[in-house]
Structures are given as structure tokens and as C-alpha cells.
């Protein structure tokens, strides 16, 4: 029952997960000392980032088995254990999380005026939730972390957000919570169905669940429950409408984490749970999901095109980009899956950066209305340079990170279905359209007001916040193998798992309808 993999000498996953929470507690006790709690936050996120680098360093990237295993019984009478372990996908996303968390600290240094202390504490708790999701190997733990990250984000949007923050926060919470509750029931159901006999304790351990087999009806229903929970987070069309509201109202740092990491947990969940646990159902339902993904890609882009609010535009672009994630993943081949993960990673970097920049812009202009901007490249050349860099990377310019993921995921999709890939590719055209048009309206053409020349351009603090993201974006574009290597073994494992099921996908609608009565 106890298990500890002696890979690095100390339980690094536990440390990396709970260090921020401890920091958060420490912050709460530093009332009235801004420098102390900001310092703590910076130190904790910094250390965590370094730890994630250590993790990658010691990580064996040539195997698909879970590493850094830590396993201790937790609620043993319910079959729940404290079980943490990571594979390449987790490691990559943990690194992204710690990086973005670190970047946010300087970015919010002077941004939050009210109840700053709680803000930083909320952030640290949020980081714990996020990392926990990526580490958990026990379904129960997964769910706990999944929900834990919800609360701080709810507060971040609701307390430090814009004028419609309450609506946005509640919408965010209820959308996510609705999905989670379905997932909770599915978790319980499969945990109890996976028992060897009716008197055994339920099975929450993912390792064991992956070897369990479920009847087709159970698979379909449980898959849908899990999938809806993840689809809300991703967010997939038509479950996406919380996202624009949440982003527009959230403070910059909130948007960055929300777009940068939180959306990724959706994709991560699909990879970690939907596919390995319910291979039969995945094969059957994948076509529908792909259709939804493609709708998301095109739809998000079209809606983005006509947005008037800069942040909303970026938010809708996330819907479009994340469509590539699900499209890649549910193409169910290794290229697509790796592409999907790369899109997640790169979207985390790029959209994070875009939101940061929108925030920086807002701090200067006190508006996000595109119609009130124009010609800003004049007074803010450095900003314009960064803006163009990240906008171009985001529209999938080759050589930068966005391209690799999108292209791989399209190749994967193309392998699955050519017409689908063709339609999805329209999204790439539209991405260029909305991003360039946005860039043009913001940065080009005549300056509205000469007073902006008196406002300073990016400070060193802001450049330092953005630079790592830019560097990684170039890195992932020029030498993506660094990251692809990490995710190749797990992706291969997933496709191997799928392989036996790929052949026997029959008339899907029929099977789904036939199975609906089964569970009840």
C-alpha cells in the first residue's frame, strides 16, 4: 500500500504541490506588510518553478510509466489513497503552471489595489490546486484538486474583477461546478463498478482503473459525464460562454492563469481519464467530439473577429485554439495527441502573454475598447513589438510554438478525416484575420490622442514578465523536440491502448441509444 519511488530523494510532487498552499497560509499572516507577502509569494513561486525544472531534469523521458510515485493510504475504508505520480504530459503542464505563476507575481505587483494580501494568498492556493490536478493518480484526489482550484479563481474573478465581475464569477463557478458534479457521479460509479466483488472497497486508483473493463453502456455514460466536465473547462462549444465573461472581468493575473493553465486541465483530463478508462466509448463518440471541436475552431474565430473588447477577443480566440486541442486528442492517433498537447502548451504561453499584454495596455489606457485605440505603435514601440510577436505566434506563424501544435493536431485530424481537417484549417485563416485585424486596429493607423506619448513604454518589470514566454515560444517553435520527447511515450501508450478498439467502431448513434437505459 505504501509506495515511494526513490528517484530524487524527497517527495518532490508533494512539495511542489503543497508549497504554494503553505506559502498562501504564510501570506495570510503577513497582514499589513506588503513587501513581506509579496516577497513570500515571489519566493514560493520561484522555488516552485525551480523545483519543476528539477523535476524535468530528473524525469526519465524515455518511458511511459508513471514516475516519482508517492502512495500512502488516505481513506482506506473507501479505497482512497494519497497517490501522486507524473508522466511527461503532467511534467510539461506542471512546468507551464509554475512558470506562469511565477510570471504573474511581478505582473500583478502594482496592479491590485484592494485587499492585495488575499489576492496573493488566493493565487498560491490556486497554484496548489492546479499542480495537484496534474499530479494526482487517485481519482478522488483528482476531483478534490479539480474543485480546489475552482474556489480561488472564483474569488479572483469575483473580488478583483471588473464591473460585471459577480455575474462572471458565478457563471464561471456554476458552469464548472455543473460539469464537476456529473464527473463526481461518474467517478463514484466507475469506482464501485470496478470492484472485484460487492463487498470490496471501491477502486479510485487510476492505475487499477486503467486495467478495469467496463460494459459499453457504463463506458458511454461515464465517458460523457467526464467529458462534459472537461469540455466545460476546455471550453468546448457550446459550453464556452462562461469564458468570455470570466476573462473580461478577471484581473490580468486571473486571466493569465485561467487561459494559461486552467483551460489545460480540461484537455489534460481528457487525456488522463477519458481515453484510458473508456476506450470503447471514446472510439464511438470521437466523431461527434471532433465535429464539436471543429465548430469551436471556426465559431470561436468568427466570433473573435467581431469583438470590440480586446480581452474578449483574446478570450474567444482561446475557444478557437482549444478546439485544436480536442480535435488533436480525439483524432486518436499519436500525432494528433502530441499536437493537442503542444497546442495546450503553446496556448498557455501565448494566450498567457496576450492577456498579460492586454493588462499592461489597460494599465496605461484604462480601456480595452479596440475602437478607442489605434496607432499605439508610435508611443509604445516595445509594446508593439511584443504584441506583434505574440499575436503572430498565436496565429500559428511557423517557427513559433503555435504552429507546431496546430499543425500536428491538424495532421492528426487529417489522418482521421480529411474533410474535417479541411474545415478546421479554415480556423487558421480566420485566426490570422482576427489577430491581424486586431493588431492593425490597436497598433497601426493614426494615434487617437497625443497624450499617450507621455505614458512610458514597457518597464523592465513588464519585459521580464513577458520575455520568458517569448523565449519558450521560440524554443518550442524552433526545437519542439524538447517538449515532444516528454509527451511522446505517454501519447504512444494512449494510442496503443486505443488500438484494439479502433477497428470495432460501429454505427454509433444506434449503440448509444441502445445503451442509454443500461445504467438506470
Amino acid at each position: 500500500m505504501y509506495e515511494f519511488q526513490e528517484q530524487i530523494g524527497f517527495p518532490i510532487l508533494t512539495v511542489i504541490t503543497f508549497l504554494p498552499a503553505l506559502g498562501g497560509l504564510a501570506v495570510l499572516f503577513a497582514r499589513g506588510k506588503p513587501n513581506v507577502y509579496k516577497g513570500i509569494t515571489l519566493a514560493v513561486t520561484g522555488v516552485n518553478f525551480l523545483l519543476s525544472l528539477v523535476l524535468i531534469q530528473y524525469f526519465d523521458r524515455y518511458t511511459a510509466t508513471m514516475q516519482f510515485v508517492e502512495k500512502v493510504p488516505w481513506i482506506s475504508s473507501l479505497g482512497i489513497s494519497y497517490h501522486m505520480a507524473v508522466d511527461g504530459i503532467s511534467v510539461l503542464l506542471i512546468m507551464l503552471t509554475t512558470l506562469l505563476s511565477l510570471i504573474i507575481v511581478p505582473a500583478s505587483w502594482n496592479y491590485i489595489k484592494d485587499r492585495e494580501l488575499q489576492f496573493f494568498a488566493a493565487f498560491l492556493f490556486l497554484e496548489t490546486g492546479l499542480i495537484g490536478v496534474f499530479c494526482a493518480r487517485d481519482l478522488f484526489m483528482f476531483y478534490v484538486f479539480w474543485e480546489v482550484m475552482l474556489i480561488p479563481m472564483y474569488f479572483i474573478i469575483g473580488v478583483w474583477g471588473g464591473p460585471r465581475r459577480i455575474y462572471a464569477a458565478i457563471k464561471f463557478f456554476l458552469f464548472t461546478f455543473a460539469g464537476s458534479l456529473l464527473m463526481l457521479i461518474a467517478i463514484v460509479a466507475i469506482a464501485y463498478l470496478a470492484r472485484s466483488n460487492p463487498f470490496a472497497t471501491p477502486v479510485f486508483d487510476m492505475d487499477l482503473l486503467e486495467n478495469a473493463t467496463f460494459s459499453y453502456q457504463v463506458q458511454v455514460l461515464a465517458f460523457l459525464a467526464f467529458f462534459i466536465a472537461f469540455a466545460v473547462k476546455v471550453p468546448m462549444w457550446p459550453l464556452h460562454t462562461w469564458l468570455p465573461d470570466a476573462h473580461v472581468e478577471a484581473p490580468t493575473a486571473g486571466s493569465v492563469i485561467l487561459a494559461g493553465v486552467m483551460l489545460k486541465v480540461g484537455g489534460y483530463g481528457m487525456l488522463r481519464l477519458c481515453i484510458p478508462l473508456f476506450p470503447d466509448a471514446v472510439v464511438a463518440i470521437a466523431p461527434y467530439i471532433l465535429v464539436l471541436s471543429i465548430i469551436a475552431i471556426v465559431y470561436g474565430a468568427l466570433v473573435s473577429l467581431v469583438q470590440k473588447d480586446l480581452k474578449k477577443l483574446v478570450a474567444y480566440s482561446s475557444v478557437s485554439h482549444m478546439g485544436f486541442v480536442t480535435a488533436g486528442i480525439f483524432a486518436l492517433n499519436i500525432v494528433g495527441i502530441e499536437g493537442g498537447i503542444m497546442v495546450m502548451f503553446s496556448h498557455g504561453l501565448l494566450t498567457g502573454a496576450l492577456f498579460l499584454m492586454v493588462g499592461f495596455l489597460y494599465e496605461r489606457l484604462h480601456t480595452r475598447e479596440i475602437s478607442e485605440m489605434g496607432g499605439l505603435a508610435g508611443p509604445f514601440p516595445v509594446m508593439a513589438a511584443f504584441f506583434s510577436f505574440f499575436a503572430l505566434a498565436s496565429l500559428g506563424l511557423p517557427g513559433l510554438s503555435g504552429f507546431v501544435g496546430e499543425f500536428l493536431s491538424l495532421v492528426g485530424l487529417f489522418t482521421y478525416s480529411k474533410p474535417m481537417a479541411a474545415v478546421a484549417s479554415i480556423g487558421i485563416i480566420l485566426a490570422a484575420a482576427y489577430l491581424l485585424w486586431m493588431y492593425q486596429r490597436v497598433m497601426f493607423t493614426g494615434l487617437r490622442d497625443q497624450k499617450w506619448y507621455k505614458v512610458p513604454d514597457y518597464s523592465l518589470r513588464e519585459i521580464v514578465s513577458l520575455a520568458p514566454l517569448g523565449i519558450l515560444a521560440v524554443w518550442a517553435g524552433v526545437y519542439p523536440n524538447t517538449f515532444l520527447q516528454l509527451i511522446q511515450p505517454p501519447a504512444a501508450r494512449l494510442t496503443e491502448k486505443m488500438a484494439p478498439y479502433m477497428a470495432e467502431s460501429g454505427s454509433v448513434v444506434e449503440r448509444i441509444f441502445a445503451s442509454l437505459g443500461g445504467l438506470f
Partner: protein
Amino acid sequence: MKQDLLAIMPEIMLIATAVVILLVDPLLPVDGRRGLSWLGIAASVTAAIATWQLRDEEYSVFSHSIAVDKYSIFFKILLLVVAALAMLLSEKYLFLKKRLLGDYYALILFATIGMMVMAEAVDLITFFVGLELMALCSYLLAGFFRYQERSVEAGMKYFLTGAFASNFLLFGMAILYGLAGSTNYQEIGDAIRLGPVPSGPLVIAIVLVLAGFAFKVGAAPFHNWAPDVYQGAPTPAAAFLAVGPKIAAFAAILKFFTIMLGSQESTWVPLMIAVAILTMIVGATMALLQKDLKRMLAFSSIGHVGYLLLAVIATGSSGRSIGMSSVLFYLAAYTFMNMGAFGVLVHMTNHSSFGDTLDDIAGAGKSFPWAAGIMSLFMLSLTGVPPTAGFLAKFYLFSAVVDAGYAWLAVVGALFSLVSAFFYLRVIVYMYMRSPEQELEMSEDGKSWDLGLGLGIAATGVIVLGILPAPVVDAAQNAVVKLLGN
């Protein structure tokens, strides 16, 4: 005889303390009465320890009218915790409202005894006496502030509906007795199982018993009293009334519907499903409309009763132990989060213009940071968000429901949890995301050590049950083993 007395030692302690309080109270000046709560708390704690000492043996005492086993010990300790928390919350409130009487604590202790008897009874008569003892005390606690119209209204409403519903329950028990010729649960259960029993009267008995219990726990359509009573009753009393009687009633429900009526599940399970669904609908949708926090909490507790009934239903399905133990755990979690939530309202009463409404807590996040923080904790726990007790309770409960084959009921439950999230979150929204219309003022005697301790215990309970629930889960599982042993 010695064994008998040993087994009821906790009750004896409470009775003795209550009597002491009653005797001492008139002799003390008003200020001196502030310590009386501590007497009651000490008694509760001691009684809880005494109860814990009994855990290793099975006592079936007083000619099998009560059974002191792991099951009743679980409930009794829980009830004593409720009592202690209620007393911790009360002292300051009574002081502020200038009605600091020892009788109040005596009533809480007597009610606790009644509830403990309800939990440990294995005999209809004993149960009924316990029930009435609890009920009488509750009526008085609700109407304790006799100079406040609302309190009297609450007392009146609680009394009339309570007595009315007790009659249902009593009639049902009378018929059960008549059909079986015994008042002992086990014998009644055997008689019904072995039969033959006339089905008409049996069904009437089941319906009457169900209706009576539904009233006691506040399940729809027998719930209407609850919001009015909680709103009108003194806030700490409301906390006590919202939790204690429910725990005791569920303790009895589980015994009634497994030991006695376990063989009749095809009769009562559909009825209870109907009640449970209606209860969840009423609880969630009505709470959405409330502006008064105590009413909101009342409807919320109605909603929680709906979930609990789901677990009872799960128990019915071939008597699965998980259904039963999930009820136990849920009640434990519910205790802390609900009492905590009411406790925060007590705390807010410091603020002179506080009227228990949502508007009154606007901006509490700034003016009462700690209170608002733990209020959020309780609200999240009531919503069922990890890592709180409420989540684990809901998780455990849904496990039971799904395991019993009622996945669709779990989905319905989840739907209403979602709806309920809306009004729980609204509390947080008001506290943190809105600014108050007027600045809050603290009254002179704002600080209260008892209250702080009470809230601290509740908050700790919510967190500990959420993070390290294993001991309580195990206790709940062990508690039900014996009950379902046959």
C-alpha cells in the same frame, strides 16, 4: 442494574447538570449567569467522553428498551457535540438580547437527552418519550424570546405543527404495535417480516410514520414550519434546532426503516423517493428566493434533508451498509457546517443593525475578515466543494446512492446541488464582492471567547472532516455493522 446505570451515565450527567443549572440560576446575578453555559458545555463534553468509554461493549439495558452500541454511541457523541456547540454559540447572543436565563441551557440539555434517547431507543415507547422530550424542549427554545413577536410566532408554529405531526407518528407507531403485539423494534420487525400482517393497516402505518419523520427532519411537503421557525427562533437556538432534531430523527429513521420495516422496502422506497425529490426541489428553489439568511439556511437544510433521504433510500435497497454509514457521516459534516453558518450569524449580531439579511452582510469580507472567511468555508462546504466536510459527505452519499443502483437519483441530487450552489455563493458574493450600504459598527461587547471557540471548532471540523475523514468514516462504518448484522 449497575450495568443499566453505567449505560445511561451520560444521560444522568446531563440531567444532573441541567438540574444544577436550574437551581443555581435564580440565585445568580445576570452577569454571573454567563458562566452557566460553561457548566453545560463541560457536562456535554464529559458526557461525550463517558459515551466514548462505552464503545467497546454492547449494552442492551432496561429490558431492551435502549441499546447502547456503536451506532447509538456515534449519534450520541454527535448530539453532544451539537449541544456543546449550541451552548458555545448561545452565551453571547442571549447576553446581547438580554435574555440570559439558565433555563435555556437546561432546555438544551434536556433536548439533548431526548435526542440521545431517540437515537439509542429500540423500543417504541422509549423512542416516543425521547421524541416528545426533545420536541417539548424545542418548542420552548424556539419561543424562548417571549417578548419578541417572531420568537413567539416561531414557538407557536413549531408547537402546533410539531404536535400535529407527532400525532401522525404516534398513530403509525400504535398501528405497528397493534400489528406486531410488541413495542420492541426487533420483534416488530420479525413479526412484519414473518407475517402474515394485514397490508392495509401496515401501509397506513408506514405512511404515517414516514409523514411523522418527514416532519421532524423537515422534508417536503412537511417542511413549511422549518423556515418560519428558524427565522423566528433565537439564532443559536435555530442552529441547535436545525441540526439536533434532524440527527436524532435520522438515527431513528434508519432504525425504523431497516430493523422494523426493512422487509417492506418495496412500499416505502418509492414513497421516500417521491418525498426526497420534492424536498430537494423545494429546498433548492425556495432558497433561491430568500433574502433572509436564516430562512435561506432553513431551505438549504431542507435541501440537505433531500440528499440524506437519498442515502436512506440507498439503505433500503437490500440494506447496504454504505448507505447507512453515509447518512452518519453526512450528519456529522452537516453538524459542523450548519452550526458554523448559524454561528457566524450570531457573531454578526454584534453589529447593531444586523438583521440577518443578505444586505446586512454586504462588505463583511472587509469589516469581519475572519468571520467572512469561515462563513465562506461553511458555504462552500454546504455547496459541497472540496476539501471540506460537505464535499466528502456528498461524495460518500452519492457513492451510496450510485452503488445502490439509483444513479439517476444521484444525478437529480447533483442537479439540485448545482442550483443550491447559486444561493450559497450569493452569500460569498455579498460578503466579498459588494460594498455595504452603511458602515458596520461593532457593539461594545463584541469579543466573545465562547463564540470564537465555537466557530473555531466548527471550522476545524469542516476542514478536518474534509481532509482527514478516515476516522469518522471508519466509525460510521463500524457503527452500522451491528445494526445490519442479521
